[in-house]
């Protein structure tokens, strides 16, 4: 009998103490403790094989993090197996490791040691669902329903509600038979709130909700009125939803159960397809004339007319707020120096020698006040004198005159200057952005190798896929048609004919020319907001990308961008077109880190120029960012930055560069469609998907 036969025939038997001991010693070898595994091994001998295996697996996992924790798990295992079933044991071990990651070794020991309190929580755990579990899927679902992104947030009130821009849901829901029921409830709540915003609960051009609620506003009856309206609207909205989405309607009805008797009178009236908020308001008046309390519905959501109406008003006032902030900034800086809004401190200064403003033409105001002043004066219809040159022919060039030449040292001289689009004047600001190019400083040496190893299988797969895309010059023989005679085939054909056989007609050769002539530029967000997850994902994504593109052979380059005001727009070289994917490039990928702000337009313009120098027939710019364009000071944030970015993408397109923009934004954003106008784009709600997604996108773009 072979040894492998022996092993498999006895694989269900329990492990003996000696076997357990040697395995445990191997697993816990690095442990600083000098406790012997012998004692525990003896205890574990009595466990069934499946439990022994489970324990060994968890102990090995734990020991990779901390041998002490592994040891503790092994010690507690007999108790834990007595207390939990298999799933419970997994949950307990996992919770221990989670606690270690979040709060350290002590927390992990406490959690693992207190079997009983974990047990109580675990038993109840089956029936609760957390907001985080349902958010991504729910958010995509709502996007599907409404066609625009609706933000989801955690409610700080006791109940779900919406302010008409964000849907606020409870942090968790509990008391269900299973998690599916909990998720269902979340979905129903979210849908009811979506319906409030979608089917006019907060009024319309014809119905003023605030006025309709006036009779009860600031009276003791106010809450009762709002609650009644919420209940009446629940009837109307459910019917309205069922009209288009019967499946959803049925599920809402299932969660809702029987209508309470106090609502029954209204159901028929409010379920009519033509019913509007006006009908609910009419019903409200009747309900309020009685003194019944509003019914409690199982899927009740709160109605907060005040908050919703306020948000709406806020939207209308937004421009004025911007204006006021600009005035404050102007006052603050022309008064005492050194007084800055603490929120406006840059995330990290890019080298002290490059203080913003030092390069500035007018160098009188700090940059944020300058931006504010410009914004303000332009809103008022007056331009500062230095900009009163008509834009268009490049007549205006930034000069050193005002700064009396003291700043024109070579180290501060930008590598390039770029125009920026000012949507308010519908013209460019000439040479407005000062661009500096530098290498990313080398990062950890082993980083790329680590990633390669972690994703080895995936990388192999990607390489194979990309190899398939590679179009080589091929010379096809024995073709029915072609540019030249295939002599071999011709000889065969003649021979066949001589011998009386039917000659082949495939006697040509044809050359298939390589169609790939593509240069791709990847522009990577290095702004402060990418710190953490996004930065990690970006770097991993770049490794995947390089590995894939190397097997494809397309020309590609990678540049990071960040900056701090228009006088310090930084572009960081990670890989130039003419550079190989070598140690230096790997070190620079590792060194990519979160810096300052996101002035996107100038980065797009500069990288477009670099792309245009490539001899390829097709040029592709892929941008990667994690939200709105933004820069220090008020100006670039908001509409201005969106418009400038949009313009820069248009310019790229006009010069024959195709752009594809990837935005990592969990909450989606409605400005994207406009901003990316000339470009194609996608929004990723989960940054972890980036490494896979980016190669996927490239494959689609380039096949």
């Amino acid at each position: 009998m072979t040894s492998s036969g022996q092993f498999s025939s006895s694989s269900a038997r329990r492990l003996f103490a000696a076997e357990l001991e040697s395995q445990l010693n191997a697993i816990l070898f690095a442990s600083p403790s000098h406790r012997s595994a012998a004692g525990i091994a003896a205890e574990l001998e009595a466990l069934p094989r499946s439990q022994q295996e489970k324990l060994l697996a968890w102990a090995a996992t734990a020991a990779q993090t901390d041998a002490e924790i592994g040891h503790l798990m092994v010690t507690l295992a007999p108790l834990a197996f007595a207390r939990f079933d298999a799933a419970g044991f997994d949950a307990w071990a996992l919770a221990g490791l989670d606690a270690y990651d979040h709060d350290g070794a002590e927390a992990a020991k406490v959690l693992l040691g207190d079997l009983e309190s974990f047990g109580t929580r675990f038993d109840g755990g089956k029936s609760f669902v957390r907001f985080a579990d349902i958010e991504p899927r729910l958010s995509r679902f709502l996007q599907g329903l409404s066609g625009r992104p609706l933000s989801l947030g955690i409610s700080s009130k006791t109940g779900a509600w919406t302010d008409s821009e964000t849907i606020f849901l409870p942090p968790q829901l509990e008391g269900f038979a299973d998690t599916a029921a909990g998720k269902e409830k979340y979905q129903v709540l979210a849908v009811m709130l979506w319906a409030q915003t979608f089917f006019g609960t907060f009024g319309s051009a014809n119905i003023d909700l605030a006025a309709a609620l006036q009779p009860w506003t600031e009276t003791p009856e106010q809450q009762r009125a709002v609650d009644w309206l919420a209940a009446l609207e629940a009837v109307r909205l459910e019917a309205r939803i069922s009209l288009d989405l019967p499946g959803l309607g049925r599920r809402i009805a299932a969660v809702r159960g029987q209508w309470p008797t106090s609502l029954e009178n209204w159901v028929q009236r409010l379920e009519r397809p033509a019913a509007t908020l006006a009908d609910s308001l009419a019903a409200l008046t009747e309900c309020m004339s009685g003194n019944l309390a509003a019914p409690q519905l199982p899927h009740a959501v709160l109605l907060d007319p005040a908050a919703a109406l306020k948000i709406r008003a806020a939207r209308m006032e937004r421009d004025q707020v911007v204006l006021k902030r600009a005035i404050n900034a102007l006052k603050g800086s022309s008064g005492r120096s050194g007084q800055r809004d603490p929120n406006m401190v840059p995330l990290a200064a890019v080298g002290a020698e490059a203080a913003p403003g030092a390069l500035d033409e007018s160098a009188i105001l700090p940059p944020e006040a300058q931006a504010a002043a410009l914004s303000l004066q332009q809103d008022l219809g007056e331009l500062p004198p230095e900009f009163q040159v008509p834009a268009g022919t490049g007549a205006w060039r930034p000069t050193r005159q005002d700064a009396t030449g003291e700043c024109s040292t070579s180290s501060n001289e930008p590598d390039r200057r770029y125009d920026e689009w000012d949507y308010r004047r519908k013209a460019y600001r000439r040479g407005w952005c000062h661009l500096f190019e530098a290498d990313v400083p080398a990062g950890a040496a082993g980083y790329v190798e680590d990633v390669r190893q972690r994703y080895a299988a995936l990388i192999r797969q990607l390489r194979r896929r990309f190899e398939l895309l590679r179009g080589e010059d091929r010379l096809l023989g024995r073709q029915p048609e072609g540019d030249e005679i295939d002599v071999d085939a011709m000889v065969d054909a003649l021979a066949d004919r001589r011998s009386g056989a039917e000659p082949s007609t495939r006697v040509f050769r044809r050359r298939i020319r390589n169609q790939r002539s593509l240069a791709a530029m990847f522009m990577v967000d290095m702004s402060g907001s990418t710190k953490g997850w996004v930065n990690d994902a970006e770097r991993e994504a770049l490794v995947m990308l390089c590995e894939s593109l190397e097997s494809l052979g397309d020309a590609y380059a990678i540049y990071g961008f960040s900056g701090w005001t228009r006088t310090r727009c930084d572009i960081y070289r990670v890989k130039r077109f003419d550079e190989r994917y070598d140690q230096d490039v790997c070190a620079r990928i590792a060194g990519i880190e979160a810096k300052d702000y996101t002035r996107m337009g100038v980065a797009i313009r500069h990288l477009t120029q670099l792309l245009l120098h490539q001899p390829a027939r097709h040029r592709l710019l892929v941008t990667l960012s994690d939200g709105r364009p933004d820069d220090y000071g008020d100006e670039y944030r908001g509409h201005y930055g969106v418009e400038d970015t949009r313009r820069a993408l248009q310019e790229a397109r006009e010069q024959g560069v195709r752009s594809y923009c990837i935005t990592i934004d969990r909450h989606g954003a409605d400005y994207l469609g406009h901003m990316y106008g000339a470009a194609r784009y996608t929004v990723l709600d989960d940054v972890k998907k980036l490494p896979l997604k980016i190669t996927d996108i490239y494959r689609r773009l380039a096949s």
Partner: protein
Amino acid sequence: MKDSIHTLAPQLQRIDSEPYYQSIADEVTLFEAAAARCLPVLLKGPTGCGKTRFVEHMAWRLKRPLVTVACHDDLTTADLVGRYLIVGNETVWVDGPLTAAVRAGAICYLDELVEARKDTIVVIHPLADARRVLAVDKRGEMVAAPASFMLVVSYNPGYQSVLKEIKPSTRQRFVALDFDYPEAAVEAGIVAREGGVDTEMAKRLVKLGELTRNLKGAGLDEGASTRLLIHAAQLIAAGIAPAAACTAAVARALCDDADMTDTLDDLVRAVF
């Protein structure tokens, strides 16, 4: 031998009975005017929105034969124009579909033109401007197009590949007609008729189509086309439960991404 040559010869399709086409705007009139003035036409729009059906309908209306070529990236000039074949002891010329269409004064429909190789697209240029000739280089022949010859190409602007964009020098020869999915009620009419379901069911399918189109750019490259909705309708008409039919014909057909598939399932469940 002779037989194999004939199977290679292009099919001139004669359309005798009216293909059902629901006109959406003024595309029929525009196409007729373009045909009368010998102008080539570019049909722009997402996949499965009725471009092919429209051309078939117009061929019937104008009583002209139709030649359809589905373009792909190995399509060579010779595939369009024609080639010499060696048959026994001699070489025989065989017209390609484009040449055949020109000689017959047919409508030649090049479906998804951008899929064709760049050097192939160039041969249509002299046909698509005032010259209206086709150069058959191998035979040293210039074939002049009769007045009834009409060139029609289609193009899906939602297509993502940068390698497959229609060059301005090509596109600026065409009268462009924009196609898109029709408004809900009209689309429901089409789905009901083509899919063999009642209006109520067709409306629901179209609703599902709208919901998926809302996800375009937010995880999906394109929403469900009219064609996909018709497929779902046909499955339903064959007795499959609506939700199952939509899952198979719409949700699974649109993407492979697991998260997105969940969302599409949610939407299917919302509608049915």
